[in-house]
């Protein structure tokens, strides 16, 4: 099931037969869910019993868990017992409980790896419960996928020796949460490589993965916020900085001409503000949106790239999950927010890349392109698209994905969506509708969701996918007309918003 989903976003770009395949998979998962509903219910009750027990009697619970856990952990547990008061205080803390979403990572032996909120050290009991649930279902040759109660959803993903758990109180769709966990898993792989993860757990099932992940928690934290606030992640597309295409091509050609003689250079990526400015790739290789998002996340979460040139190992799971690429990472100039990454498989060519970067900066400066980039970056995103100007001001917000280039364009978050709360509410509606669309069989073309606040529309065409929020009173047909008008406008302006042609290195 998980694999089906991991493939899902990419395969959307293939317009032909794939979607039906997906919806089949979705369908199976749905059937499974229904079949397992009873089991889930009973699981839920057993879950709450365990939690109750945990609350009533910590000692029993710790004993129960130690017996399950590897021997070399016993010392940790002595410490854990003394800290049980603290653990209680985390679990009882209103602030912790009030969080809308929790993400946990644990090893299949139940060892805590990561918790989004609260220190995972203080949540040992809870991790034990999660591990117990997963292995309880595994014992009957089944896989625990999700637990539903009220508006709450708990989604599980088991990836080899790693278990990922998402808990949401917002009635998020399973697909959305699964995708989120997929990203988190990819982030872990990106830091360690799949080979390293597998080997480590083959050697020692009870390995404490935190030892290798220290310092990467911030990458995961950052990624989760990124995922929740940036629709291109959920829709698995590339978001670009809008720019007239001759200028973008001029930038790309400077990069390509400078790097053309460097063997083993796989990707050259120029990014700013979580978006792509230019991209070049080695023939036969392409940059998957989800890999690019990991790069964007790393750049955004690492201030240190601003001070010096870095030589950074990064694994791009879709490109190759088992090995590192080596990235020369640096900002174009001190006063330019564009960060250039030259990614290679050769770990010995740092200085060659460093020279290349210098030349790229020189050429870009000489051709006035650095100031072009600076000017573009200075413009607020609100100036990129004007719904009023296009003549569709009844559309309040939209996200458009071009299926062929996998590029994404979204309109600025203007009132009433200019607050974090309101924009999150809207994104939740979007993702729910989008998930429903993909879970429908046969796949629907258009889906409306009405509420007092707005009318949300998801439209899937041959060439594009659109999510839009319109004024609440608007009629269905006029909503569709407006969206069509918008799509036509975007297709006409495509060159400015999208990177339709990725040059070869």
């Amino acid at each position, binding site marked *: 099931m998980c694999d089906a989903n991991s493939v899902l976003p990419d395969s959307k770009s293939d317009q032909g037969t794939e979607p039906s395949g997906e919806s089949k998979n979705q369908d199976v998962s749905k059937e499974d869910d229904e079949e397992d509903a009873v089991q889930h219910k009973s699981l839920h009750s057993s879950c709450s019993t365990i939690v109750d027990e945990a609350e009533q009697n910590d000692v029993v619970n710790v004993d129960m868990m130690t017996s399950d856990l590897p021997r070399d952990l016993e010392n940790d547990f002595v410490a854990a017992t003394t800290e049980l008061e603290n653990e209680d205080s985390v679990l009882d803390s209103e602030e912790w409980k009030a969080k809308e979403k929790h993400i946990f990572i644990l090893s299949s032996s139940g060892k805590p790896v990561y918790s989004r909120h609260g220190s995972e050290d203080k949540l040992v009991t809870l991790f034990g419960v999660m591990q117990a649930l997963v292995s309880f279902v595994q014992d009957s040759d089944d896989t625990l996928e999700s637990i539903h109660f009220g508006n709450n959803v708990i989604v599980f993903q088991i990836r080899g020796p790693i278990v990922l758990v998402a808990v949401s109180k917002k009635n998020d769709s399973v697909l959305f949460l699964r995708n989120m966990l997929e990203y988190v898993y990819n982030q872990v792989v990106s830091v360690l490589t799949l080979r*390293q993860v597998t080997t480590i757990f083959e050697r020692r099932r009870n390995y404490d993965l935190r030892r290798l992940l220290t310092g990467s928690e911030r990458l995961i934290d950052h990624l989760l916020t990124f995922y929740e606030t940036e629709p291109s992640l959920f829709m698995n597309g590339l978001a670009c900085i809008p720019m007239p295409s001759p200028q973008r091509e001029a930038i790309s050609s400077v990069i390509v001409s400078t790097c053309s003689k460097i063997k083993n250079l796989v990707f050259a990526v120029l990014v700013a503000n979580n978006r792509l400015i230019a991209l070049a790739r080695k023939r036969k290789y392409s940059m998957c949106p989800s890999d690019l998002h990991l790069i964007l996340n790393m750049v955004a979460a690492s201030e240190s790239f601003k001070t010096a040139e870095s030589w950074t190992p990064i694994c791009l799971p879709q490109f190759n999950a088992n090995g590192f690429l080596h990235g020369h990472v640096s900002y174009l100039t001190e006063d330019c927010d564009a960060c250039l990454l030259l990614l290679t498989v050769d770990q010995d060519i740092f200085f060659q890349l460093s020279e290349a970067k210098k030349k790229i900066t020189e050429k870009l400066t000489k051709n006035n392109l650095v100031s072009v980039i600076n000017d573009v970056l200075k413009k607020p995103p609100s100036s990129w698209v004007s719904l009023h100007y296009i003549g569709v001001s009844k559309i309040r917000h939209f996200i458009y994905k071009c299926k062929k280039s996998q590029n994404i364009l979204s309109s600025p978050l203007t009132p009433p969506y200019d607050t974090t709360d309101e924009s999150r509410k809207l994104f939740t509606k979007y993702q729910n509708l989008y998930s429903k669309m993909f879970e429908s069989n046969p796949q629907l073309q258009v889906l409306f969701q009405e509420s007092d606040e707005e009318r949300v529309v998801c439209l899937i065409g041959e060439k594009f996918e659109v999510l839009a929020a319109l004024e609440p009173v608007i009629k269905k047909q006029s909503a569709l007309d407006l969206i069509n008008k918008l799509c036509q406008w975007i297709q006409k302006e495509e060159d400015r918003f999208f990177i339709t042609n990725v040059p070869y290195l």
Partner: protein
Amino acid sequence: MARDSSSKKRVDAKIVIVGSSGAGKTALMERFVYSKFTQVRVQTIGATYVSKEVFRGKESIHLSIWDTAGTERYRSMMKQYYRNAKGAIICYDITDKHSWDALRSWATEIRGNEPDCRLFICGTKKDIVDEGYAPPGVHSDCVKFYAEGLQAPSIVSSSKTGENVDALFSMVADELWEEVHQKPLKKDVVSLDKPVRRNCCYSA
């Protein structure tokens, strides 16, 4: 690389800063190169490269400094960062016993792989102990004894106040300077016989 041939007066030297995570390697580098200090630091990913020229009279040493990540996950790829290094500054946090233990394993590893690389021991965060915020985690006699056994100079510095940071790097520069000037013949032979590029990557 090409600079070697263009200016004969200048000496290039690769320096690597290693040590356990959170020991203050990046802070040390930033204090030396940019004369600044940032209290809150995020972890280095991989390694960062900076260079700084240190003058000795009319001549200069071009220090290529690699500031590496201290986390365990990069341990397997550390070799590529310290390969061919002329000097390694091994840092430990003077308030943290664990980082001292890690220092010993770094020293052993680098000695084993790069026997010609000079080692320098640097205790960091001197200000924290000086101001009484935390007691020292390692006894200074212990450091002295170990450093002598290793024939490595040791120093305690503070990147926050800047104390001893320049002293450390000029100590490094002096040692490398001496080394270069003591064996001029040998260096000439090397650079004549082999393509210049080899200076950086032997395996290439």
